[in-house]
């Protein structure tokens, strides 16, 4: 058996038909991971006991592979009578896994804001909520934009994991084709190239957005 280019080309439309699922999963997981990660970091800052517990939770998540989380949720949730579509389970799993990383990103983003910013805002008599909303939050968002963008690319590259829990995304499609035709090499190569191009393209977009977004403040 040798590599059949024509066949490879013929698999492209089928595989690309679910590229939307891939990107959608990545975006939703990124959002989920951001929200969860931010909450973890806020909880960690809240108090000493909660702080240690959250620190431990973050460490625990970061010490375990994404695949294990996907398996855990996929098999345990139904056992607890929680029936969710595989897609949702997948997004949940990736959100949990990447929240560990994003919690660190938010921590660094907040710590990077000079202490004097809050002091100057308070010295002007601003209410605590105004200090957070007008002064701290915008600066935190600027600080985390680039790292979150980079993690988004990582999340995108993790979406194929969802194939192991039967989610209709690109890797899954490739295996569908393979199991029908007994030809594995071609569809898998196509998926590989698509992902490589996608990752490079999005990484580039992130860099461009970074420059545009952070540029005009003169920093």
């Amino acid at each position: 058996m040798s590599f059949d280019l024509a066949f490879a080309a013929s698999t492209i439309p089928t595989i690309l038909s679910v590229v939307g699922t891939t990107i959608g999963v990545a975006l939703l997981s990124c959002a989920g991971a951001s929200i969860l990660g931010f909450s973890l970091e806020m909880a960690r800052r809240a108090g000493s006991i909660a702080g240690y517990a959250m620190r431990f939770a973050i460490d625990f998540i970061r010490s375990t592979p994404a695949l294990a989380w996907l398996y855990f949720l996929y098999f345990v949730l139904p056992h607890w009578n929680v029936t969710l579509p595989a897609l949702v389970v997948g997004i949940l799993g990736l959100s949990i896994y990447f929240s560990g990383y994003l919690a660190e990103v938010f921590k660094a983003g907040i710590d990077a804001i000079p202490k004097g910013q809050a002091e100057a805002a308070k010295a002007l008599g601003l209410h605590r909520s105004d200090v957070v909303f007008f002064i701290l939050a915008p600066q935190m968002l600027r600080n985390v934009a680039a790292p979150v963008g980079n993690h988004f690319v990582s999340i995108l590259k993790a979406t194929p994991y969802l194939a192991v829990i039967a989610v209709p995304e690109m890797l899954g499609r490739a295996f569908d084709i393979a199991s029908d035709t007994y030809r594995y090499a071609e569809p898998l190569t196509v998926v590989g190239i698509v992902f490589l191009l996608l990752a490079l393209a999005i990484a580039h977009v992130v860099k461009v957005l970074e420059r545009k977004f952070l540029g005009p403040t003169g920093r």
Partner: protein
Amino acid sequence: MNDSGHSMRRQAQGPATQIGQGQSASRHDDPAVDATALNKWFGGFHALKDIDLAVAQGSRIVICGPSGSGKSTLIRCVNGLETFQSGAIRIGGVGLTRDQKQLRKIRREVGMVFQQFNLFPHLTVMSNCTLALRRVLGKSKAEAAGIALHYLERVRIPEQAHKYPGQLSGGQQQRVAIARALCMNPKIMLFDEPTSSLDPEMVKEVLDVMIDLAEGGMTMLCVTHEMGFARQAADQMVFMDQGRIVETAPPDSFFAAPSQERTRLFLDKMLH
């Protein structure tokens, strides 16, 4: 210069007689800032030791001293950025507490200029100045812009209003910081080493603004190493060392003939 009719030490009457009915009324002869028996610890470190300081309205006090003497800590206590464990501070007769609402009220009356400028980098110069006007004083966008422009003109950089802090020089940024504080129309201005982070050629432009402010009658409490400025603008010099006020005197006698040995040593180092 001003006469020393306003005494520097706490008067025998004590603050109780100055208040009269309740804490809310501040009378025009109350000291702008009155610290009594102020003590502050950072953990085990005793940073401020039995500080007594009364700053009369309209006077200009310069606090100097070696690093670690507590000068910054002292003025940061005045607007509640630092808390203190014992003693009292009264701003215009009203005692400082830890109540956030009361602190915010007091902070409207007390402006502060920081060594690191602390301008908000993501906001334009104009927005830096108008934010508190709109959010704290409830002014309309147009009204706030008018006030901001007025003070930006006062510090001589109205044309920079739409730039971002990162596009300005250090001296310009500090002047914006002064304008930002002035926009709130404070009764007292605190300066925490305002020129220490500036390149030498930009120090003058900031000091000129501060002298201008002094001549306009603003009550000022400055921590600074700029002795030339102190000689020109201050009513009283306060020398602090290791958390205590060692000596206070009008600039003439302070520089010519300091009464304390430590003051003498410090001035020798500073002026040579």
